[in-house]
Structures are given as structure tokens and as C-alpha cells.
């Protein structure tokens, strides 16, 4: 069965390749880059061929009948209306065909669900609307945001080659390693999917589910969130860079260096201009999707920050809502996502941008204090 499906798959693929002139039109699953994706590709081709065969036989008969057995051709109606033998035959034959499909499918299911013996483990967290990656063996953590500029989405700039499928910080993994993903979410359901790697798993807040992949080839593989997660569901792509082992080690070293800088930032004191400049970037990546770049929010759905009581009132309450979120709304708790320095920066920015001219600034030490004793451990890196 397997070799048959392989040959069938090869036939379909070569058929596709011969139509390379229609390069923009893709008619089949993406080119697989892992064993599981390869198995799924072949399974799909096999089932398509079986369906196509049945379709041709059944509707060949129907269209023959439509042409030959019409009143205008003078055909007289027969009067038969049952035949036990043929009815048993066309119940049993589909059953047998289905069993032929079920066997190879079950093998792939069992392979896909086997997440044992990974070479490395990455925790993936879905947020509204970005992905967070924690490399559990390396102590490397970062967030991955859409990097397509707003202007391209709003049609005021030409769209780039990887429009909506590009991020600021891709997930980086070594080639040929069995990577286990522990997938969860912070707010609502999301789903992590990279088609070429054959890995898709819903991200469920409060629960951890796992899946795995093993990339065969060095390259960049792109995917998207595939579970409706609110307004910017279409704007939280996934990019996986598959690199050589040496490149991977170099990347890990670089990420650890960045983490050290971020940690030392948490104990520094900044001047207000520095905080505002840093805060504007943080705001753009984390807040602007809802509260908008002009701070005016979306009436009825997301409140304005410009002129709001929170952003112009006591600073402690402002820090509190950014750290802990507002339960029952889309305002998530950023305490777990942003470092002390970043929260200080974004709060300072919000209190001094647009109509908010409070002139006050928050320092990383204030954020650490607001986190309180037990929860003092802020994420090291951003």
C-alpha cells in the first residue's frame, strides 16, 4: 500500500511540475520538509486518486444515463426498483475500500502522536496576537511579532515578497533534530501550524499539549495561526528557520548575550527621553493592535489611552493594569511577557504621548516593586 501510494504521489507531483508555467497557482499541499509532512502528502494523494476513480465510475454511469435514458431520445422507463444483490455489493465494496485507506492513515496517526525521545524541547505560547518561544534546554526566550509594516496592510506601500508571513524574531532550530513543541496559550485559543513541517496543534490556555517535527532540509518555513483568536488572527504568522547545528549554536550564544543586556537594563535608571523612545517601540509591538497607534482605541471594543483616566491618573494604577491585565476583557497581563525595563518604558510612553502630558516616568525598579516579593522574577529577555 505504501509503495503504491508513493508511486501515485510521484505521478501527481510530476503532473504538477509539468505545469510549472502556472507557477502562481498551487494545486496541492506544500512541498513537505519533514517525514510526517511527507507521509501526509502521500496519504492525501492516495485518497484523492481513489476518490477520483470512484467519481469517474459513478458519474460516468450517471452521465451515460442522462444522455441515453432521456425521454427526448425516446427511452421508455423501466420499472425495477430494487435488487438485493447489487445493493449488498455497493455497501460492501466501499467498506473494503475504506479499510484500505484506514490502514495507512492509522500508521501515520500513531507516528504523529509519538512525541517521545526529543532532541530538544521548545515551549510555544500563543498570545493575542503574537507567539512566544521558550527554549527549555537553552534558557532562551523571546516573542515573535508580525514584521510586515502597517503601511503595506493599509495599501499605502508596496507589499513585500513575504507579506504577512514575516516576523521580527523567527523560531530557529537545527536541521535533522527531533524537536518537541509544548504548546499553550495565554489568553484565548490559537493554533500553531507550519504546513511544510506537518505540525499543527491548538494552543489552549491553561493546558499544555505537545507535537513534534524533524526538519529534513535547511530553509525557512512559514505558517500562520489557524484558530480564530480575535481581531488580529490573520496577523500572527510563524516563521521557522532551519539551520545547521553550528549556525544554531551561534544563534543560541547571540540570544544569551541579548538576555544579559536585558537583565542589566532591569536594574538601571533611565532618563525620560530614553524611556519614551524605547516605549514607543514596545507600544507598537504590543499595544497598537487594539489601542491603535494614535492611542484612540476602537470605540466600543478597545478603550482609548490618549486622555484616559488610567494613563493620566496615579501611576501605580497604570502600572498595575499593564502588569496584571483586566480580567474578562482582551487586556492581557503583560507582567509575564515584558521585562521591568520594557514595562517602565511603555508606561512612560503612554503617559507622555498624544494628549497625555503628565511628564512623569516609571523606572524598572518601580515595576519590580509593583510585582511584589514572590513574583519578583521578571522574564529575563524580550
Amino acid at each position, binding site marked *: 500500500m505504501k509503495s503504491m501510494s508513493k508511486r501515485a504521489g510521484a505521478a501527481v507531483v510530476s503532473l504538477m511540475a509539468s505545469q510549472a508555467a502556472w507557477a*502562481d*497557482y498551487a494545486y*496541492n*499541499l506544500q512541498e513537505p520538509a519533514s517525514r510526517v*509532512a511527507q*507521509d*501526509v502528502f502521500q*496519504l*492525501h494523494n492516495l*485518497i*484523492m486518486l481513489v*476518490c477520483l476513480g470512484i*467519481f469517474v465510475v459513478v*458519474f460516468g*454511469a*450517471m452521465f451515460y*444515463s*442522462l444522455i441515453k*435514458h*432521456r425521454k427526448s431520445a425516446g*427511452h*421508455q*422507463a423501466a*420499472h*425495477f*426498483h430494487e435488487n438485493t444483490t447489487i445493493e449488498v455489493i455497493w455497501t460492501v465494496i*466501499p467498506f473494503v475500500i*475504506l479499510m484500505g*485507506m*484506514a490502514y495507512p*492513515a*492509522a500508521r501515520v*496517526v500513531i507516528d*504523529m502522536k509519538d512525541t517521545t525521545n526529543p532532541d530538544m524541547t521548545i515551549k510555544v505560547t500563543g498570545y493575542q496576537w503574537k507567539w512566544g518561544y521558550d527554549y527549555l534546554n537553552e534558557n532562551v526566550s523571546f516573542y515573535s511579532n508580525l514584521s510586515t509594516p502597517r503601511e503595506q*496592510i*493599509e*495599501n499605502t506601500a508596496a507589499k513585500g515578497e*513575504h*507579506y504577512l508571513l514575516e516576523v521580527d524574531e523567527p523560531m530557529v532550530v537545527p536541521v535533522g533534530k527531533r524537536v518537541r513543541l509544548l*504548546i499553550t496559550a495565554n489568553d*484565548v*485559543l490559537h*493554533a500553531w*501550524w507550519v504546513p511544510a513541517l*506537518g505540525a*499543527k*496543534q491548538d494552543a*489552549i*490556555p*491553561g493546558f499544555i*499539549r505537545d507535537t513534534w517535527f524533524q526538519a529534513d532540509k535547511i530553509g525557512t518555513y512559514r*505558517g500562520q495561526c*489557524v*484558530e*480564530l*483568536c*480575535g481581531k488580529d488572527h*490573520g496577523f500572527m504568522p510563524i516563521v521557522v528557520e532551519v539551520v545547521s547545528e553550528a549556525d544554531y549554536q551561534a544563534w543560541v550564544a547571540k540570544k544569551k548575550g541579548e538576555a544579559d543586556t536585558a537583565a542589566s537594563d532591569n536594574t538601571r535608571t533611565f532618563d525620560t527621553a530614553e524611556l519614551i523612545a524605547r516605549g514607543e517601540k514596545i507600544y507598537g509591538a504590543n499595544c497598537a493592535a487594539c489601542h491603535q497607534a494614535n492611542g484612540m482605541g*476602537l470605540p*466600543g471594543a478597545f478603550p482609548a489611552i490618549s486622555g484616559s483616566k488610567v494613563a493620566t491618573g496615579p501611576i501605580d494604577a497604570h502600572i498595575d493594569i499593564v502588569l496584571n491585565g483586566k480580567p474578562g476583557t482582551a487586556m492581557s497581563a503583560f507582567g509575564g511577557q515584558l521585562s521591568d525595563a520594557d514595562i517602565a518604558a511603555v508606561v512612560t510612553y503612554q503617559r507622555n504621548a498624544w494628549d497625555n502630558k503628565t511628564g512623569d516616568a516609571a523606572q524598572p525598579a518601580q515595576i519590580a516593586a509593583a510585582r511584589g516579593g514572590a513574583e519578583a522574577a521578571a522574564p529575563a529577555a524580550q
Partner: protein
Amino acid sequence: MSDVAHAHGHDDHGHHAHPTGIMRWLTTTNHKDIGSLYLWFALIMLFAAGTMALLIRAELFQPGLQVTNPDFFNQLTTMHGLIMIFGVIMPAFSGFANWQVPLMLGAPDMAFPRMNNWAFWILPVAAILLMVSFVLPGGAVAGGWTMYPPLYIQGGISYDLTILAVHIMGLSSIMGSINIITTILNMRAPGLTLMKMPLFCWTWLITAYLLIATMPVLAGAVTMLLTDRNFGTHFFNAAGGGDPVMFQHIFWFFAHPEVYILILPAFGIISQVIPTFARKPLFGYASMVYATASIAILSFIVWAHHMFTVGMPVAAQLFFMFSTMLIAVPTGVKVFNWVATMWRGSMTFETPMLFAIAFVCLFTIGGFSGLVLAIAPVDIQLHDTYYVVAHFHYVLVSGALFSIFAGIYYWLPKWTGHMYDETLGKWHFWLSVIGMNIVFFPMHFLGLAGMPRRIPDYALQFTEFNQIATVGAFIFGFSQLIFLWVVLKTIKGGVKATTKVWEGAEGLEWTVPSPAPYHTFETAPVIK
């Protein structure tokens, strides 16, 4: 629609003092009036939800945001789904049941006429609750028709109104179902045994049981959402000991049988139409009944195939994959029976037959893509992509909706006393069938290539197929105006329909005059 029938009824029953004008329709307990109300309601909702679909397709004509913003886009997809399912397909089938079940059984009316009136008149209330939410703060519900928490917990007041609307529509369906079951089991003409009953009645009998079994499940699920949203419970909140995935299990335990609620009456209509125009009895009547019942029973044990990506144990994934594949067997039997009914018949191709043939062919494409999706590893690749959108539109548009068109063209002469305009009917058919395939066929390719569903903007490699789909959507959408025109024209006048209407028609409804009098079968016919 039955004004003429009404006047006719007056001649025979002058002693009834019928209210006139709006009060006639508000207070009516006549199955034909209520059938017409259901059908008009469905038609209005079809245009409302269809307009939303065109806005969705207009936004997706090219990459970037042009027509909508992401939040409004999500409102459109959510409301399009909810209204098409609960406001169009289900009420349209209820309309057919009201008109046809008593006529086919030789019964004078439905078993509980006053409950019948209520079952209909609470529906517009639900529709208003849904539609007004577009103008409330925060806009309409935008969390998808599947209403998954925790996203659903985040929304504004319209999310509560939608829960209320779902409750009302569920109540309406349950009342309608009790009526249909009681009518079919108790009010058949003497001699009309269950196994002699027209297949349309069988499919509705089984559908009604599905509705009674699953609507309370949906009501429970949305009530838990309501209390999670407003009263601090944590059924679906992990932080309080709940589980968001539990909602999906409960929801799909309702919503998979719901899929068959949306298609079994379609099977019934098609099984009436094909024998008429093939001039040959339905092939394998008994196996059709058993296949329908098997599909209904299997529908209760396949729900988690909608959830292959939530991460379930291997054994569960295998169980739901095998049980889902099994549904292909009785569904295949039905398709084979329809083809065998046509085989060696003496076919003509009036509009109802054209829609029925398109149904058999295109519904089967939806069935095959369903089989592809039943294969768990393939489903995991295709879940929540446009492949799924293509699949369920093949079964719901070229399946359920085409069967409704077939049924309307088939019975409209009986209801109005006039033949519809065959030329316009054929224009409607060809534009619909071509338009529908231009919209939905390319979506298979989009899904395979990796385009997620429910996104307002997409990567550049998806542009061409999206443009084709949008062009098809506007062809399909605007050709429904022809349908509206044909229906209005037929009500106003046209060639007088005979009692039998169609040369090959069989059954009790073809023994009463056209238009069917306001009251029929006050004395039960006897079937030998």
C-alpha cells in the same frame, strides 16, 4: 404565497371568520400559511446573510485591507454562518415540512397547529436580536459561529444577545420537531404504513429526532457560556478548574448531528424529485430509509473529528477517524440509489431535476472532501484552512441550498396554482451552478496551499484563487435575484398548473387541486 388558496378555502368554508391582513399571518394555525411564512423568512435571511458573504468576498478580492477592518470582517463571517444555518437552511426545511408533510400523509393539518404558530413566530424575534447587534457598542458577535471560549467570553453585549437568540431558535426547532414527529406517527392516512410513506417524510422524521436530541445540548453549552460571561462561573476557564476544550466537545456533540439536520431533509427532497423526472420509482426505498437512520445514529459518535488538532490521545483519534469514515458507506448507498433511479428511466430536465442532478454530483464532491478530512493526519494539515470552507460549502450550498431550490421549483406549482417560468428557472440554475463552482472549487487549492480560514487579509501567493472566488461569488449572489423574480412572477400568475403538475409525479399531494385548497384532506384518503 397562498392568497389564492386562501380565497379558495373561503368558498368551501365560509363559516370560518378568518382575520385578514397582518393578523391573518400572526394568528394563523394553518400548516400552509405557516409553511409559507417559514419559506419567506428563510428567503429574506438568505439575502441578508448573502450580502454579508459578498462583503467578505469583496474584502478578499485582493491582499491588504480595503472594504472592512479585521474586527468587522470577523463579525461578518460569524453572522454569515449563524444566519445561514439557523436562519436560512433550517427554517426553509421547516417550511417544506409544514407544507408537504400533511399533504403527503393525507392529514388535514399538523398535529399541534397553535404550537406550530409559536414555533414560527419566535424566529423573527431571534433574527432581530442577531441583526440589531451590528449597531450595538462593540458590534455584532465576532468569535465565529462555533462560539469557542475563551474568545467568546471577551465580547460585548451582542454576545449575550446571540446566546439568547440561539436559545430561541433552539426552542423553535424543538417545538417544530415535536409537531412533525407527532404528525407523522399519528396522522397518516389509513393504509399509509411507515414503509409506504414518501421518503421526504422519513428524512424529516429522523431529522426531528436529531433536533430533539441535540438542541438541548446546544442550549446547555451556550447557557454555560452565558454564566461564564456574566455570573462568574468557570466552566470553560482553566484558571477556575474548567476546560475550554470541554465546550468544543459539547458543542460538536450538538453540531455534528446538526450537519445531518441540514442535509437529511435535502436527501428527502431529492428522493422525491428524481423519481418524478426519471418516471421510475425510487430505487432501493428500504435501503434509503435504513441509510438515513444509519447516518443519524453514526452522527452521534463522530463529533471529535472537528477537533483533531486539540490534541487527543491516539486511541480517541483512531476511533473518531474510523467512525467518521464509516459514514461514507450509507452516504454512498444513497448516491448509488439515486443514480440507479435515473438508470433506464425516461428523463426530462425541468429546473427541479437540474438542481437535483447538480445536487447529486456536487454534494458527492463535498462528500469526497469530507472523506479526505476524515483521515486524521490529512485533517490535521487541512483543519481551519480554506479546504474546510470549500468542503462545507459544497455540502451546504450545492447540497442543502440546491435541494431547497429543487423543492421550491418542484412544489411551487402545487402551492400557487401556476407554473413557474421555465426559461428563467434554467437561467437561475445555470448561473447558480457555474457561479457556485467558481466560488468554492478554488478554495480547495487555497486550503491545500495553506491559507487559514477566517482571515481578512492573506499572503500574496493566495491572490489569484481568491480573485476567481470573488468573481464567482458575485455571479452566484446576483443570480439569486432571478430566483426571487421567478417566485414573485409565479405567485402573480402564469400557466395554470394541473392537479398532477408533473407527468411522473406520484403521491397524495398530487391528488389535491392546484393551488392546494386552504384546507385539504378533511376526510382522510384511504391507501390500499
